[in-house]
C-alpha cells in the first residue's frame, strides 16, 4: 500500500509512532501546567491560561514524567506487538512525490519492537534508578536536581525511541541519517545525564566528540553517494550499484565508518567503554542493545540492500574482505580487552564489542551468498539475517538484564568495581542467580537464549560456506568457502569469553561482600520487575524460540534480498 505523507492511511499505519509523539508533547506540557494567568495588555483583565506559574500539585509531582514516559512506551510497544502477532501487518510505503520516505514492513517493525522493548525496560528501571522524591524534610542538592530533571530524562528517552524508529522505517539514506542523528544526540545527553559526576560529564562529551566525527565521515560518504547516483533512495542505489564508479566504493568505506561507530566495531569502539562506564546502567544497556541494533540497520541497508551484487553476476560482494577483517579484529579485541577488565560495566561494554564482531562475521557470510552459483542463495542470506535479528532481539533480554542488575547495585553506591558484585548471591539470591543466568546466556550456555543465538549465527555461516557443494557427493574442507573460518574464529572467541563471564559468577557466589555492602539490596519494585522480565525472556527464548525465529525469518524475507 502506498500513501502520501499525512494522509488518512498514514495516520492509521503510524499509530504507534504517533503515540510516541503524543507522549513527547504531553511530557512537555503536563509538567508545566500551573495556575498562571495572562494579563491582557493595558487592562486589569487576567485570563487563566494554565501554562507556567505555580504548578498544580498533581502535575507538579516529580514522579509524573516517569509514569507518563513508561506508559507511552508501553502503549506504543503493545500496539506494535499486537499488530505483528495478529498478522495485520501490511507493507505500507510513504511517498512524497516520487521519493519513497518510509516503509512499514516486517523488518522495520521487528527493529522498532527491539528499540521500544529496550527503552521500555530502561525507562522502567529508571523509575527507581533516578528516583523522584517528594519534597519533605531535608533535600539534598542531588535530590533536587533529580526532581528537576525527571521530565528531561523521559523526553530524551522518547526522542531516542522516535529517532530509532525513524531509522528502522526509512527508505531513503537521508531520512535514515536524520533519524540516526535524532537518536544519537539524545543518547549523548543521556550518557552525560548525571552532569555533576565527573565520569558522566566526561564520558558524555567524549562520546559526543567521537560520535560526531564518525557521523561526519558517514555524512561525507552519503554526499559522495548522492554525487555518484543523484539520489539517496535505497531502491535507486540498489538498482544502480553495479554501475557505480570508484567514488561509490569510497563512499561505501566512509559510510561503513559511520555505522561502524554505532555498532562499536573496532577500531571505532574506543568511546564505547568510557560511555558505558560513565552512563547510568539502564542507559548503558540501551546503548549496548538498541543503539547497536540501530547501527546494524545501517549496515544491513548499506551492505545487504545496496551493495550486494545481483544474483545474476558471479562472485561475492566487494566489501567482504573488509568486513571479515573488521569482524575478526572486533571480536578478538573485545574479548581480549574484556578478559582483564575489572569494571563490570567496561567488561560488558567490551563484551558488546565482541558481540558486534559476531554479527559482522554473519554479515560477511551474506556477502558470499551466491559464490559458485549456489541454488536459491536468498535462502542462505535470509537464514543469516534472521540469525542476526534473533541475536539482536535476545541481547535485549540478557545484556540489558545484566546492565539492569548493575543498575540495582548503583542504587546503593557505585558498580564500577568487580568487588561491588561480591557476595551478591548471598545478599540477594534471586538477583544473584538472575545475573548468573544473564552471564551464562552471554557466554552462550544451553539452553538459554544466548546459546540459541550463537548457534543460529554459527550454523548459518557454516551452511553458507558449505553452500550446495554437498549435492555433488562428498566434499572436503578445501571445497568450503573461506567464511567458514569466521565461524571458527567466533567459536574460539566464545570460548575465551566464557572466562570473564564466569568470573562474575565466581565473585557473586564465592566472595565475601565488601565492607559497607552487607545489607540487603535496595528494593526498587520496577527495576526488579524489569529484571524478571529479562530473565524470563532469556530462559523462554532459549527453550522455545520457534515463534521468534519465525518472526525473524519474516523480517528477513521482507528485505527482499534476491
Amino acid at each position, binding site marked *: 500500500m502506498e500513501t502520501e505523507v499525512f494522509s488518512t492511511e498514514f495516520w492509521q499505519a503510524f499509530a504507534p509512532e504517533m503515540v510516541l509523539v503524543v507522549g513527547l508533547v504531553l511530557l512537555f506540557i503536563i509538567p508545566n501546567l500551573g495556575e498562571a494567568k495572562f494579563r491582557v495588555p493595558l487592562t486589569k483583565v487576567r485570563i487563566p491560561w494554565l501554562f507556567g506559574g505555580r504548578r498544580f500539585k498533581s502535575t507538579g509531582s516529580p514522579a509524573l514524567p516517569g509514569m507518563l514516559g513508561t506508559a507511552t512506551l508501553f502503549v506504543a510497544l503493545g500496539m506494535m506487538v499486537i499488530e505483528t502477532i495478529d498478522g495485520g501487518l501490511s507493507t505500507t510505503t510513504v511517498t512524497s512525490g516520487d521519493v519513497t520516505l518510509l516503509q512499514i514492513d516486517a523488518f522495520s517493525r521487528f527493529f522498532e519492537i527491539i528499540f521500544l522493548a529496550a527503552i521500555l525496560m530502561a525507562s522502567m528501571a529508571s523509575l527507581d534508578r533516578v528516583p523522584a522524591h517528594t519534597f519533605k524534610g531535608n533535600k539534598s542538592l542531588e535530590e533536587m536536581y533529580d526532581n528537576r530533571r525527571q521530565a528531561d530524562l523521559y523526553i530524551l528517552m522518547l526522542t531516542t525511541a522516535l529517532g530509532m524508529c525513524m531509522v528502522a522505517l526509512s527508505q531513503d539514506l537521508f531520512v535514515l541519517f536524520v533519524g540516526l542523528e535524532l537518536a544519537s544526540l539524545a543518547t549523548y545527553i543521556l550518557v552525560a545525564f548525571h552532569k555533576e559526576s565527573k565520569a558522566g560529564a566526561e564520558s558524555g*562529551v*567524549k562520546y559526543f*566528540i*567521537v560520535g560526531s*566525527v*564518525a557521523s561526519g*565521515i558517514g555524512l561525507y560518504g552519503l554526499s559522495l553517494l548522492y554525487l555518484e547516483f543523484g539520489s539517496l533512495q535505497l531502491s535507486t542505489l540498489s538498482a544502480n550499484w553495479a554501475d557505480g564508479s*570508484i567514488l561509490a*566504493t*569510497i563512499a*561505501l*568505506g*566512509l559510510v*561503513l*565508518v559511520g555505522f*561502524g*561507530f554505532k555498532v562499536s566495531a*573496532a*577500531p*571505532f569502539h*574506543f*568511546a564505547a*567503554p*568510557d560511555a558505558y562506564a560513565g552512563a547510568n546502567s539502564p542507559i548503558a544497556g540501551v546503548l549496548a542493545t538498541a543503539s547497536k541494533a540501530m547501527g546494524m540497520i545501517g549496515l544491513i541497508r548499506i551492505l545487504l540492500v545496496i551493495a550486494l551484487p545481483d544474483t545474476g553476476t558471479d562472485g561475492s560482494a*566487494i*566489501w*567482504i*574482505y*573488509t568486513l571479515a*577483517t*573488521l569482524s575478526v579484529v572486533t571480536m578478538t*579485541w573485545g574479548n*581480549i*580487552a*574484556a*578478559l*582483564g*577488565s575489572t569494571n563490570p560495566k567496561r567488561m560488558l561494554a567490551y563484551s558488546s564489542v565482541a558481540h558486534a564482531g559476531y554479527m559482522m562475521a554473519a554479515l560477511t557470510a551474506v556477502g558470499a551468498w551466491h559464490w559458485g552459483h549456489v541454488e536459491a542463495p536468498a535462502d542462505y542470506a535470509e537464514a543469516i539475517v534472521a540469525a542476526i535479528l534473533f541475536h539482536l532481539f535476545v541481547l535485549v533480554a540478557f545484556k540489558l538484564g545484566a546492565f539492569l542488575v548493575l543498575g540495582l547495585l548503583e542504587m546503593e553506591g557505585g558498580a564500577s568495581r568487580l568487588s561491588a558484585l561480591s557476595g551478591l548471591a548471598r545478599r540477594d*539470591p*534471586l538477583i544473584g542467580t538472575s545475573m548468573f543466568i544473564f552471564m551464562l546466556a552471554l557466554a552462550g550456555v544451553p*539452553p538459554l537464549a544466548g546459546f*540459541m543465538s550463537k*548457534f543460529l549465527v554459527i*550454523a548459518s555461516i*557454516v*551452511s553458507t560456506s*558449505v553452500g550446495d557443494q*554437498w549435492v555433488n*557427493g*562428498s*566434499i*572436503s*574442507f578445501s571445497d568450503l568457502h573461506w567464511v567458514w573460518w569466521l565461524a571458527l574464529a567466533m567459536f574460539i572467541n566464545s570460548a*575465551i569469553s566464557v572466562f570473564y563471564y564466569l568470573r562474575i559468577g565466581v565473585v557473586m557466589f564465592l566472595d565475601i561482600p565488601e565492607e559497607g555492602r552487607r545489607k540487603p539490596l535496595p528494593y526498587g519494585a520496577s527495576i526488579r520487575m524489569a529484571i524478571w522480565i529479562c530473565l524470563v525472556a532469556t530462559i523462554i527464548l532459549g*527453550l*522455545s*524460540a520457534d515463534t521468534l525465529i519465525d518472526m525473524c525469518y519474516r523480517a528477513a524475507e521482507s528485505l527482499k534480498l534476491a
Partner: protein
Amino acid sequence: MSESGIIDYAVLIPLLPMLAFPVILFLGKMFNGTPTWVKNVKEGGIIALTVMGASLLLALLVIKEHMHHVGTANIFTWFESSWWNPETGAITTKVFGVGVYIDHLTVMLLFVAAFLCFLINIFSIGYMNTDPINDNRNHRFYAEFVLFCSGMLGMVLADSFLWLFIFWELMGLCSYLLIGFYYERPSAAYAAKKAFLTTRVGDVFLVIGLIMLWNLFQPYAGTQGALSYAVVFDPANIAKVNPGDLQIALGMMFIGAVGKSAQFPLHVWLPDAMEGPTPVSALIHAATMVNAGLYLVARMFPFFSGAELGALSTLAIVIACIGGITAVMAALIAFVQMDLKKVLAYSTMSQLAYIFTGLGSALWFANNGYEELAAFAMGASLFHLFNHAMAKGMLFMASGSVIHEMHHAHHEVAHHGHDDDHGDDHDDHHDDHFDAQSMENMGGLASRMPITATAMFFGSMSIIGIPLIGGFWSKEGIISSAWQVARKEPVFLLPAMLVLIGAGMTGFYMSRMWFMTFAGKPKTEVAEKVHEQTAWIPIPLVILTFMTLGAFILAGMHAGHWLGDFNNGHYSNFFDGIGYELEHVFMNHDMFLFILTYVAIGLSLILGPSLAMSLYGGSLDDGQKAKPWMQWAISLSAKVNSKSNFDNSAWANSSLSESLHKRLHFDDIYDAAMLKIVVGFANLSAIFDSKVIDGVIKTIESTSQEVSRRVRSLTTGSARDYIMMATLGTLVIFMLLWGVA
C-alpha cells in the same frame, strides 16, 4: 510414531517437582523461621506435597491411558540441526528435543515412584518437622526431596538412554545431598561421600557402556539420537549390530546398575547411607532410586529378545549370579545387625538381588528363544520390584516411626517428662550415647505402637514371602524361573540354589527383626514409654499396609503376565485369574515346580521364622496385649522360645559371626585398597596437577592478562586518540576495499 492426548502433558510429571526445587529453596531462604512458614507451610513440606500430589494425579491419568499400549511422544523439539560429516561427506539432520516413552515397564515404575514419593512426602512432614535438629533447614530437605523425585520420574519417562543417564545422575546428586543432610556429623558426611564415590565407579562404566552403545547404533540412527529407544530397540537395528560388542556394552551398563542398586561388589555404600534421615532411606535407598538399576536392566530386554539366539546368554548368567551372590551375602550380614535400619538396608540389597536373578533368568530365556518363559520371569521380577518397593517403603517408614518415638520417649525419660519443648537442648540428647535405632533398646512395642507394628508385621511377611501376602506371588515366580533356567543351563544352578537358600534366610532375619523390636518385654526404660503420637506418620503406613495385603488382587488380575509381556500382555478379571494363579502356584502340574514351591514355602515360612522365634521370641509384659492379628504370632513365639533350648553361643563366638559383624570385611578390603592404590595414584596426579596443568594454566592466564592490559592501554581516555584510531581504521578500510576494487 507420535501421538497426542494426555501423554503430551506427561513431561509435567518430572517438570513440576523440578520447578518446585528453586521455589522451595528461595522461599525457605526468605521466610525461614517465620511462624507461617513453620506452622502452615511446614517449612516447604506443603509445597512439596502439593507438587507431588499433582504429579501423582497426572501420572495416574497417563497410566490409565497407557495401560494397554506403548506410547511415545515428542514433547518438545528444541531445534534441528544439519551437520556435515567430513568422513562421509554426507549431511545429516539431527533433532534435538525431549520426548517420553511409555510402556508397561514405565507405567509400573511411574506408579511406584509417584505414589511412594507422595506418601513419603506425607511421612516426612510428620518426621522431619518435629525433629528439633532440623530446625530451620527443612526447606533444604524438601527442595532436595522434590529434585530427587523429579530425577526418578524423569528417568522413568525418558525416551532415550541419554536422558535416562542425565536423570540417573541427578538422582545420584540428590542421594549424596540427602545422605549428608546432617552434614555436621562426620559419619553422615563420610557416608554421603562413600555413597557418591561408590556409585560413581558404576556410573563410569555406565557412561562407557552408553558410549559403546552409541557407537554401535549411530550408523542406523537417522534423524534421531543414537541412544533413543526408538533406535536401539528397533529389532532391525539390533540385528545389524555385532552381538559380541553389544554384550560388552550392555555388560558395562550393567555395572552401572550394580552400583546404583547396591549389588555385590559395589554394595558397600547402602548400609552407610542409612545415616540420612529416615524418609530418605525409605524413598531413595529402598523404594525408588535403588530400583533404577533394575529398571535399566529390565530396559535391556529388547536387546536380548532381538539379538542372535544365545549370543548374550553369558551376560544374562552374570546378572543372575551377581543377584544370587548378593542375595545370600546380604542376608547373612543381616543376621547380626542390631541397628533397625541397617537390617532393612541389607534386606533391601538381598531383595533387589532376587529381582536381578529373576531378570537374569528372563533375559536368558529371551535370548534363547523361550518367549513365554521369558515373559513369565520378567513379570515375576517386575512384580517383585513393585511388591518390594511398597513393602520396603512401608518398613522404612515404620522403622522411622519407631525411631522417632524412641527419640521422643528417650527425651521424656532423660528430662523426667517435664519439658515438652525440646528446642535448644538437643545436644545433650546426643551426648549420652543412647542409640534410638538399636534393637537392643527396644522390645515389646507391639502393644505400644499398634499401627507401626501392624505395618511392619505385614511388610515383613511380604518380604519373607508368607503365602498369599505381597511378595510371595512374585518371589515364587523368581525362584521357579531361576530353577527352570537351571534345568536347561547347568551354570544357572548356582544362582538358583542361592536364591532358594536365601528364601529361608530372609524368613530368619525379617522375623528376628520383628520379634526383637515388637515382641518380648521392653529391654529399656525408654521402650516402656514409647507411644504413637506424631500426626502425619500413620497415614502412609495404613495406606501401604493395604497395598501390601492387596497384592493378591493384583496377582489375581495377572499383573505378572501384564508386566512380563510388553506387547500382548493384558490384565484380566480378578475372579478369572485368581483360580489360575492359585492352581499354578500350589498345584503345579510340573512335578519339579510343585516340589520346588513347597520347599521354598517350607524354608521361608517354617524354618526361618521358627528359628527366629526360638531365639528372639517372647510374650509381652503383663497387662499388654497386641492387636489380635499380631497377638497369635507373639504367643506362638513365646511358646517356641520356651520349648526350645537353642543355644547360640557357639554361633555367636564363631569366626563367621565375627566377620559378619565386620560386614564380611568388604569395607576393610576396599579401604586398604583405596589407601594403597588410589591414594598413591592420587598423590601422583596431585603433583602432575599442581606442576604441569596448573603451570600451563597459570602461564596462559598471566599471558592473557598481560595482552589484555596492553590492548586496554590503547583506550587512553583521550578523545583525540580515539579519533586518531578511527582515522587509521578508515584508512585500513580504504586499503582493503581498494585491494578488491
